[in-house]
C-alpha cells in the first residue's frame, strides 16, 4: 500500500469517517470528530503505522491532513 493510502487509512479508522472526507479540507477542530481526544489517538496510530516517534512539538503541528504529510516528511516518510 502507498504511504498516502496508509495515511488515509489511519484517518478513516481513528476519526471514523469515509475515505472521501479525508482531503485537504480535513482539519483539527476541538468540537468535531477530530477533537483533542481523537487527536491523541491519531498521533499514536501514526506512530504505530509509520514506526516513528513523533516529537512533542510536532504533535501540535499536525492540524490538518496536509500538515500530517508535511510533519511525517520530517521523519523521512515520503508522499
Amino acid at each position, binding site marked *: 500500500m502507498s504511504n498516502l493510502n496508509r495515511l488515509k487509512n489511519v484517518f478513516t479508522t*481513528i476519526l*471514523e469517517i469515509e475515505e472521501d472526507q479525508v482531503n485537504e479540507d480535513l482539519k*483539527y477542530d*476541538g*468540537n468535531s470528530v477530530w*477533537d*483533542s*481526544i*481523537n*487527536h*491523541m*489517538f491519531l*498521533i499514536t496510530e501514526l506512530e504505530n503505522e509509520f514506526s516513528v516517534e513523533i*516529537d*512533542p*512539538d510536532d*504533535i*501540535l503541528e499536525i*492540524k490538518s491532513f496536509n500538515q500530517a504529510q508535511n510533519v511525517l516528511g520530517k521523519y523521512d516518510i515520503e508522499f
Partner: protein
Amino acid sequence: MSQHSFNPHNEFVKKISDNNKLNFVDASSDSKYNLSQLMFPVHSEFGESKQLGFIYVDSGIKSLAIYFSFLNSSHALVLLSDTLDSNLKQNLEKIYRPAFIYDNTRDSIGNYKDVTFDNGTLNARVFRTSENLDYTINPEVKILLSTSGTTGSPKLVKLSFENIQENALSISDYLPINGEDVTPLNLPLNYSYGLSVLHSNAIKGGTIVCGIPDILSKAFWTCFDKYGFTSIAGVPFIYEMLYRIGFLKKEYPSLEYISQAGGNLSKNIKEKFNSYCEKNTIEFYVMYGQTEATARISFVPPAKLNDKLTSIGKPIKKGHLRIDDKTEELLYSGPNVFGGYAESITDLNHWESIDWLKTGDIAYTDTDGFYYIKGRLKRIVKVFGNRVNLDEIERYLKLELSTAIIACTGIDDKFILVAYTEIDMNTDLLKRRLFETFKIQGSAVKFMYIETFPMTKNEKVDYKEIATIYKSK
C-alpha cells in the same frame, strides 16, 4: 455606564461582587472587563418570579456574562454545553420547558422570541417563551448540572446557592487562590469541576481568563506566556495529553499550582508530574469529587502526595467522609451535598435533604486517615472525564442488536470493552450507535470476540475475567 446593582439578599453574589481584585480577560479579543461590565439587566425582562432557564455555554466572555447576570437573579439555571447535538437540545427543552434559553448556536427556537441585552460593553441575545408556564421551582434549586456532560440525558443534579457557595469557600480554603492569580477557564462551565474553578476564583481570585484557545494548539501556549497563567486544572486525559506534548520538558515561571480531578490519573503519570512539580516549586493538588457534591469532596495536600500517591486524600473543610460498615461504600456529608436528581420539570419543586451522599465508590483508609478508592459499587467507568454506566450501555446494545450475548466492561477507566460471542458482529455499526446515542468516541471503545463468556460461581457474567482476558492478549 450605570453601576449595576447586585442582589443584596444573595450572599454568594455579594461575596463575588465584594472581591475587588476580580477582573476578567477575554483572550480571544484581548479585552479586559470588571464584573459590573459583564452584568446584563435581566431583572427588567424576566422579573423576580422564579423561572427556569437553559444556558448553553461556550468558553467565551458572553457565556460568562450571561451566567453571572442570571446567577444574580431569582431564576434557576440549567448549564449545558452549546456543542450538544441539536436533537438532544430539543429533547431536553421538551422535557423541561425552560422560560428562557441562551444559545448562540441557533438563530431561532420554535415558540421562543429573542430579546437582546446591551449593557454598553457587551450584548447578548436570549430567547424567551411566549407560553404561560405553570410549574413551580423550589426556592433552594439554583443550578442544575448534568453528570454525563455529552449524552444529553435529562437526569440533572440539583444544586442550591448554599451548595455552590460552601463548596467555593472550602476549595478556596485549601487551594492557594489569591488576588494576584491569573486563572484560565480551560474546563467547560457546564462541567462541575470547571464551574468550581470559576466560583472559587470569583470569590478569592484575581484575573479570570476566558476565550482561551484549545489546549492542543500553539496559541494556547502563547496565551499562557502572554497572560502568565498561575494555574491549570485538568482531568486525567488532559494530564496525559500534557505529558505527551512535552509539558514536563519546559518551564513555566508564572505557574504556581496545578490541580487534577475527574477520575483516577494513572500512577506513573502522576509520579512524573509530582516530581516535576517538586523540582519547580509548583504545588500539585490531586482531588476527588462528584457533581452530586457540587464538585469537591476531598484532596491530597501537595506535601503529602509523594507518600500518598494513590490516595484521594482527606475531606475538604466542613466535609466528612466515612465508610459504610457492610458495603464499604464511601459516604460523604457536608454543606455541598446536592438536593436530589431531577428527571423532569415536576422534580424541580422538590428539594431532598441528603445527610450522607452515597458516592458509589468502595474505599478504605490508611493509618494516617487518608482515603483510597478500591473500586465501584455500580458498573461505572469514567471515559475522558465523563461518567458512563456500563449496564445502561449493555442494555442499550442488547436491545439495539436483539442479542443477549454481549458484555461491556471498563478497562482501567480508559476504554469500554464490548465482548461478544457472535462471529459476524458488525462492530462498525455498534461504534456508530454508541457515538450517536451516548457520544462516546469510537476510539474509546474496544471489541473482543470470545467463544463463551466466563461465568462467576453464581452464574453471572464474570466481567473481571473478561477484562483479564483482554489485557492478556
